[in-house]
């Protein structure tokens, strides 16, 4: 009798075929599942490109902010003496000695044209005219080297209204520098930042249409300077003229001290009130707003206390634009008995909108 039962060889061959078939099917299904999953989680090509670009931009911006932060801190913490040449769009320029001592403050002395010195020792600021033997003394303008303003300055970049970007490298005063461009709504400022020390070696300012407004550049830098106390004091035997302004950090502080001032309900995005200056004789109050690189100064004059030049303009024309240097413009207008002057680099529409928003 023939045995139809499979031989061992036949049994083994059939099982192998089945396993191979199952393996092939499993592989196909697995590959399909993997592809399906990949398709589900993989973004489209354009979106991926956009994301990669944004990540790259963010990384570039982070680098620019890091460089700017280093620059600001270096200016507060490093001692140096530099010779600096400045040039304005009108072709006029100065040459100055810059002495910076983190402990004592800053001294700028004009070499050409001679006769002007500015000293700020963190407590008082002195503008000295040696030809007229006169010192104008006021509150310090310098930020204290405590880092608080640096943090605040870094927050300026979070709103995307001001964008910093590393745009290249260069050499200034024989030193290698990164170039960082900071673009604001009205102004573009470029900084040449020393790679070794973080010090600012050169600054250029442009308006948004690309016109160069000013340039200041170090021609030499001494990083091991020696200072004397006299460097940061006004010379003796000079006529001291004190300004009669009171400064306040907020409108509330000014109002608490009895200063009455109208505050605009609208200023362009990014601008914040930084300072209120009131003349002691009550003739005018100035509000200063800034977005970190541009300043908007709004002065409100008491009735009949505006300079006659401004009064004549508003009496004749109601409101009027005045030209000022370095791309700044004044806008003067009258509301009842009050006369206002706004100095800024804002557009016409923005200026009028600020004016119309005053109560």
């Amino acid at each position, binding site marked *: 009798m023939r045995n139809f039962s499979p031989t061992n060889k036949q049994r083994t061959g059939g099982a192998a075929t089945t396993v191979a078939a199952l393996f092939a099917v499993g592989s196909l299904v697995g590959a399909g599942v993997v592809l399906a999953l990949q398709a589900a989680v993989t973004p489209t090509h354009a979106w991926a490109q956009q994301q990669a670009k944004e990540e790259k931009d963010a990384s570039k911006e982070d680098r620019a902010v890091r460089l700017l932060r280093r620059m600001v801190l270096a200016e507060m913490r490093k001692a140096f003496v530099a010779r600096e040449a400045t040039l304005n769009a009108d072709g006029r320029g*100065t040459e100055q000695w810059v002495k910076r001592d983190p402990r004592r403050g800053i001294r700028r002395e004009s070499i050409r044209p001679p006769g002007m010195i500015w000293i700020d020792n963190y407590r008082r600021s002195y*503008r000295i005219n040696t030809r007229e033997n006169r010192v104008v003394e006021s509150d310090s303008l310098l930020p204290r080297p405590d880092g608080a303003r640096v943090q605040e300055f870094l927050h300026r970049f979070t709103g995307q209204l001001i964008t910093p970007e590393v745009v290249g490298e260069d050499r200034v005063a024989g030193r290698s520098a990164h170039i960082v461009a900071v673009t604001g709504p009205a102004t573009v400022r470029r900084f040449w930042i020393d790679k070794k020390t973080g010090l600012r070696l050169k*600054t250029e300012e442009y308006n948004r249409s690309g016109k160069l407004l000013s340039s200041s550049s170090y021609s030499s830098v001494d990083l091991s300077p020696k200072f004397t106390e006299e460097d940061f004091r006004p010379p003796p035997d000079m*006529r001291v*003229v004190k300004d009669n302004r009171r400064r306040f950090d907020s409108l509330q502080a000014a109002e608490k001290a009895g200063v009455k001032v109208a505050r605009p309900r609208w200023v362009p995005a990014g601008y914040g009130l930084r300072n209120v200056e009131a003349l002691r004789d009550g003739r005018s109050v100035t509000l200063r707003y*800034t977005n*970190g690189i541009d300043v908007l*100064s709004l002065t409100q004059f008491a009735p009949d206390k505006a300079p006659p030049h401004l009064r004549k303009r508003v009496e004749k024309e109601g409101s009027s634009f005045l030209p000022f*240097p370095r791309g700044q413009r004044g806008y003067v207008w009258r509301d009842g008995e009050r006369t206002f002057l706004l100095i800024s680099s804002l557009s016409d529409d923005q200026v009028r909108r600020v004016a119309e928003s005053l109560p």
Partner: protein
Amino acid sequence: MATMLDCRRVQPLLSEYVDGALSEETAWDVKMHVASCAVCQRVADDFAGTAELLGGLAHVEPSANFESVLAARLADLSVKPHRPSLREQVSEWWYARGSVGRPALASAAAFAFVVPLIMVTLTLRQGAVDAVNGTAVVKQSNAAASPASDAEALERLYDDHAAYSSSLLLGDSSAVLTPADSRL
């Protein structure tokens, strides 16, 4: 003028601008244009140089009756005796004092001159010391208290704006000496 002037409108005004003959309002507009325009600035500098040169020359113009007056004076000189000049009169008076009176008079004059001079010098010096000590400072508004001129008040308002801009962390502090002070 409400808007910024251009070169074509400014240049005809430059001569009057240099002479200070424009209204304050127009002068300001011209000044701001000149500050931002190298061409007009050069023309204004040329006018200013010419004006300065002309100002240094003596203005001589003969009167209508120059010739007749000259003739009369010549005639007078021919008949009148020599009249001593003031210097000659003083000299004569001085030497008439004699060798005793002259030194005495000189000492008295020197005393009368030197004492007030010393007093004035001491007063001014004390004033300067007081000023540095903050005891007798001149108070002045940086904006409008008692400006030397209207334009100066406006310039100070701008200078304060520029000084604040330059004090920003991303500001350019070279501008503290640039805007107003380079005009001095």
